[in-house]
């Protein structure tokens, strides 16, 4: 029972602050709500026994990406304080589009996802797994990143992508020579 209560609480925190993110007029408050939403997602990772990912979520999303977004908001702040309309003219259409997408996804998950009866029982509750496997999963993850049979190529590509993205970000944001004078 406590599991369900925890799940519902996490859902309310995550989805509620996500709605604040997309609807709040003040961008700075939206960014703070985004941090709460990220924390809620980290809570879901903990309920799914993925403690490492929860820690990575806290570090990367709340620690880095949110701060980057807040910096960007502050750098473009003059516009944020203007009492301008936060939504474009497609707002009504967007609500309909998002709702229709959700209904389609919910129908697929709830009704049309092909399931055999034994799989149904298997997915009805979190399968019990020995603690040794769950605790070893982070070590296994680390090994799989450098194992030639698993993800060494995507891992190296991801590191090159990060390097290229950061160099590109500095290059794009670098002030032009005439701006400095």
């Amino acid at each position, binding site marked *: 029972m406590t*599991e369900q209560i925890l*799940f519902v609480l996490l*859902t309310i925190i995550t*989805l509620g602050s*996500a*709605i604040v*993110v*997309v609807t709040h007029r003040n*961008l700075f408050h*939206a960014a703070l709500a*985004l941090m709460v939403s990220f924390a809620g*997602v980290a809570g*879901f*990772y903990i*309920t*799914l026994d993925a403690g490492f*990912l929860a820690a*990575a979520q806290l570090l*990367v*999303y709340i620690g880095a*990406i949110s701060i*980057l*977004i807040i910096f*960007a*908001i502050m*750098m*473009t702040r003059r*516009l944020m304080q203007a009492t*301008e309309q936060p*939504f*474009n003219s497609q707002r009504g*259409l*967007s*609500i309909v*589009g*998002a709702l229709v*997408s*959700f209904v389609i*996804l919910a129908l697929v*998950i709830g009704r049309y996802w092909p399931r055999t009866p034994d799989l149904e029982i*298997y*997915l*009805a*509750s*979190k*399968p019990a*797994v020995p603690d040794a*496997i*769950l605790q070893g*999963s*982070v070590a296994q*993850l680390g090994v799989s990143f450098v194992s030639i049979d*698993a993800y060494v190529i995507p891992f190296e590509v*991801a590191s090159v992508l*990060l390097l290229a*993205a950061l160099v*590109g970000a500095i290059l*794009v*944001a670098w002030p032009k020579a005439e*701006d400095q004078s």
Partner: protein
Amino acid sequence: MIPLSWYLFVAAALFCIGLYGVFARRNAIAILMAVELMLNAVNINLVAFWRYMTPERPVGMAWAVFVLTVAAAEAAVGLALIISVYRNRDSVVADELDLMKN
């Protein structure tokens, strides 16, 4: 006991909230925040499927880490672009960035 579908419903809802943000917001930074919400929804799905279907192999976790990496790269480049655009055009409203129109 929590069925797998609960996690999938939450992830679908989070994804659609992000979708709405991308469609309806005018400010480019707000659009970027909505994209981050959508990436998080995908990650919840990946980790939930890992835990329920293949807990003995860390496939879902590995891909969740890759999504995290790409999200970080995307945020860095996106915000650099926004700052650059703001410096040049004094605006980050997506409707007004019509340099490549016509």
